[in-house]
């Protein structure tokens, strides 16, 4: 019984490593999740463009492993059939691992058609007035972040 079990474990381990190897060869396992919604889960896509604090960059399969912190902006996902999906993210992280798996974790994300221009403009103006009336450094910094996010939303919708 134990022997059978160990053999079956060996077999399953091998099949796992094969999958990983194949994944490394020509496609990436792309996970894109936000606090409110999951967009992709271990999906295979052609290309992902992300905005990060060290500059926007594109991720293709076999990208060099790296970590990055997202800044407010639009993530563009090019799927295997060439269709393009644009998603706005407020903040988050990008992880690209050695096995070509890519994880994008965002605090909040929404596709562009879910965003409303009028509401975004309203948020921008209220954030601006908040920044002007802020007393402490911390409040000012928080308001500045709100302004940055709102500005990017307005820009990305337009």
């Amino acid at each position: 019984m134990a022997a059978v079990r160990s053999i079956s474990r060996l077999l399953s381990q091998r099949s796992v490593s094969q999958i990983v190897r194949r994944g490394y060869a020509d496609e990436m396992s792309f996970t894109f999740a936000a606090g409110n919604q999951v967009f992709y889960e271990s999906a295979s896509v052609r290309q992902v463009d992300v905005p990060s604090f060290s500059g926007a960059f594109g991720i293709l399969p076999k990208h060099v492993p790296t970590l990055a912190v997202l800044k407010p902006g639009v993530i563009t996902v090019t799927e295997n059939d060439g269709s393009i999906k644009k998603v706005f993210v407020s903040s988050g992280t990008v992880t690209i691992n050695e096995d070509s798996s890519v994880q994008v974790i965002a605090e909040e994300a929404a596709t562009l058609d879910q965003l409303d221009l009028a509401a975004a403009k309203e948020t921008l103006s209220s954030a601006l007035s908040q920044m002007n009336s802020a007393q402490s450094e911390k409040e000012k910094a928080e308001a500045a972040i709100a302004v940055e996010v709102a500005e990017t939303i307005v820009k990305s919708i337009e």
Partner: protein
Amino acid sequence: MLGRVGNLALLVCQNGPQLQQQCGMATLKAISIRLKSVKNIQKITQSMKMVSAAKYSRAERDLKQARPVGEGAKMFYERAEVEPLAEKPQKLYIAITSDRGLCGAVHTNICRQIRTILNGPDAENIKIVCVGDKSKAILQRTFGKHIILSVNDIGRLPPTFADASRLAAAILQSGYEFSSGKIFYNRFKSVVSYATTDLPVFSLATIQAAPKLSIYDSLDDEVIQSYLEFSLAALLYYTLKESACSEQSSRMTAMDNASKNAGEMIDKLTLTFNRTRQAVITRELIEIISGASAL
């Protein structure tokens, strides 16, 4: 408590036949009071079950969304093969519970794991963060000096990412410099089962010492620091969701069992009540008849 007193009265009455008539009435009254209270309790547990069933289905839906967040956030630690540093033993344990009880052993399991570790060697380098009043209540008395932070108002509403990031910020600003840590939470498996598990968290220094970090390109400390802060929030968000779901499902089971037990008790009490009533009637009849025949 009340129920036990009622039972006692019953026993006392059966032992003293000379007081039987008066006592028979008292017993009847006691049983009916008790029956009523058990029925009320059953109503309460039944409605609590309904409430937690509704909350559970929502929590499970939320959990499906939150799982990739947690899986993604912990993937880096696994891939980079980060290990706790031997020379810096400061550890931080985060207990994810909630404010509410009546949900089986979800909170006790978390606290038991932590207690076992704290009773072992090296306990002086471990600090605890209690999320939810329950873990604080359980751990405070014996391990009060290990607790550096406790958070409440968890479990009333479903946890949000904002909650998790506030919690992460509070942990990072607590001033405790840990090199590694663990988040203890209940991983939801199915409606009837959950597993108490832990997820690792690491500090900047520990990540930098990881053997496989060098394969990651263009990293500076600031990026890793922000990355870690965000991933702590993401992990906390994920564990809060898992725990909330386990808690609701466990409460559902607990309340279902409580209703079933109350039902059994009601059956037994009704039987005793009817028997006693019958006995009282019979005795009264005998008294009347024997009284009449004596004349």
